[in-house]
């Protein structure tokens, strides 16, 4: 942690460098010797995995930009013809980039659910959480801009639907929403101007993400990691140095994650894709079913669950803004759900709720579920799911912390991990 560096430069050069740019000292203190709780489990390896994902997206993305043409007439062909069929290994790099986005979101969702389960957003780690939500929003924006670039049918109509969310402002101040969508599009509809600015922003935002990741990690290094027990580190007996203990653990799980990634890339490259996006954008024909990428489906279901445009958009916005506030919505003094029997159940219902909303979002707007002769319109499932999503944060988080009897917390991390041996360390 801050202020107790143990770095000793070993050579003449590193002594010289340390006086001028103490970058090796920074690396030593924040990576090598950084005291880390000794009980971090598999779910704590996703921070490293996410850094890897960001790196993959930037490297493959920079390469793809060398072959891509941001033009409504040429974009589709430069991707499907040029990159996929003519550029050496273009197919591989594009498939890595497209599936990399899905892997990135898979990892970020695990990372976020882990944070919620172990109460990692709680005091004193609020800033880590807030910066994390900011990264998540930037990721969604980047992914959205990126999905438009191949200029397929789903690219085009996804861009139309998402940018049209702003037209809901017409219901607040007449013509304001239309003025904003025209401004966003640079035209009266999504077109060439829109594609070019989305390409520019898609290239820019990953570097903004990298910057906020830097802040996220900086904020993490002030209090240090939370842990599955959610109790504070009480002394050196509770920690191990980050290197080699967690560099090795992170590397192992990263390798497993890369196997999963490679399995999609080489055996199911179109698993996450939508067949409609293999058809070039046509501004006159909307595909029968518009669906966003899987990682945005729960929000899409919430948007569609409301039959009124402005309120639907506000619900969507509210579901995201809520995430920033949870450090203050959760009233419990105990961080980890391991010791919160009631909250643990609420959490798992919440996790299922997100999956349910994702399923509903993937189905068409007027779909009906046939449950043994009973006809259940999916929109009602979406409404129930949306209600629970908000209730989890705004009702259960404040309430459960006040009424639940938490289990006894262990005395220390060392004792919990090592039993009585922990006392001898």
């Amino acid at each position, binding site marked *: 942690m801050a202020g107790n560096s143990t770095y000793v430069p070993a050579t003449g050069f590193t002594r010289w460098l340390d006086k001028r740019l103490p970058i090796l000292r920074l690396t030593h203190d924040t990576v090598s010797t950084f005291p880390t709780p000794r009980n971090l489990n598999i779910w704590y390896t996703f921070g490293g995995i996410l850094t890897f994902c960001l790196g993959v997206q930037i490297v493959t993305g920079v390469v793809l930009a060398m072959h891509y043409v941001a033009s409504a007439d040429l974009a589709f062909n430069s991707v499907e013809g040029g990159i996929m069929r003519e550029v050496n290994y273009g197919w591989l790099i594009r498939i890595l980039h497209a599936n990399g986005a899905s892997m990135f979101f898979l990892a970020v969702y695990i990372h976020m659910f882990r944070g919620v389960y172990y109460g990692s957003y709680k005091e004193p780690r609020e800033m880590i959480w807030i910066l994390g939500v900011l990264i998540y929003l930037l990721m969604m924006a980047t992914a959205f801009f990126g999905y438009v670039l191949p200029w397929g049918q789903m690219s085009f109509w996804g861009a139309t639907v998402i940018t049209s969310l702003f037209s809901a402002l017409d219901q607040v101040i007449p013509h304001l929403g239309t003025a904003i969508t025209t401004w966003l599009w640079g*035209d009266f*509809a999504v077109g060439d101007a829109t594609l070019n600015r989305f390409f520019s922003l898609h290239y820019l935002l990953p570097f903004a993400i990298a910057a906020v990741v830097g802040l996220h990690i900086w904020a993490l290094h002030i209090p240090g990691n939370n842990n599955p027990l959610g109790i504070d580190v009480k002394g050196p007996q509770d920690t191990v140095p980050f290197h080699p203990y967690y560099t090795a653990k992170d590397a192992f799980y990263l390798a497993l994650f890369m196997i999963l990634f490679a399995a999609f890339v080489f055996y199911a490259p179109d698993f996450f894709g939508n067949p409609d996006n293999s058809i070039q954008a046509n501004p006159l024909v*909307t595909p029968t079913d*518009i669906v966003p990428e899987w990682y945005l489906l729960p929000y899409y279901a919430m948007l569609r669950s409301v039959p009124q*445009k402005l309120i639907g958009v506000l619900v969507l916005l509210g579901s995201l803004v809520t995430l920033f506030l949870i450090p203050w919505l959760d009233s419990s003094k105990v961080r980890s759900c391991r010791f919160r029997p009631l909250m643990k159940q609420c959490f798992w219902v919440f996790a299922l709720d997100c999956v349910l909303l994702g399923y509903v979002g993937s189905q068409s707007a007027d779909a009906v579920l046939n449950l043994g002769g009973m006809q259940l319109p999916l929109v009602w499932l979406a409404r129930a799911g949306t209600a629970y999503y908000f209730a989890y944060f705004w009702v259960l988080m404040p309430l459960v912390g006040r009424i639940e009897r938490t289990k006894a917390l262990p005395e220390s991390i060392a004792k919990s991990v090592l039993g009585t041996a922990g006392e001898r360390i």
Partner: protein
Amino acid sequence: MATAIKPEPTRRDFLYIATGAVGAVGTAFTAWPFIDQMNPTSAVLALASIEVDLASVQPGQQVVFKWRGHPLFVRRRTPKEIAEARAVAVTDLIDPLARNANLPDSAPATDANREFKPEWLVLLGVCTHLGCTPTVSTPQSPQGDYGGWLCHCHGSQYDTSGRVRKGPAPQNLAVPPYSFMSDTKIKVG
């Protein structure tokens, strides 16, 4: 201090405020070109009107043209469709306004206010919810309950006058500015 004396403004205070004000105004003036460059260019604005030939459109048929990057619906309505549209009371509508660029903003959404000639309905094919293109309803392939259009994206429905009858769309399909140049030709935009 026992008595709070408001200090006299000094030359320095004045300079601080004046400098700050000039800086703020300067920033705003500098920001504007960077904001306004996002709006449609003069080349985009120049392509804003088209002429449409109606001669080939059969009764009961809809033909789609492209105007300002959007689909433009031209529907030649059958007498039955016209009668259905005219039978609806404005008070039963979700959006009571005509949304006709050729009429004042306050014109009510009667069927007569939605077109120049009852047979010809000219609309922007842009769902007023989130901009998808609604699918036309025909007797052979009905879409929704109102005989007009159904938007598959989020389930909005429109009647044979293009007026919204089922949400989430908040407004009737827009009637673009257009005029009849002859009996079989219109100019849109």
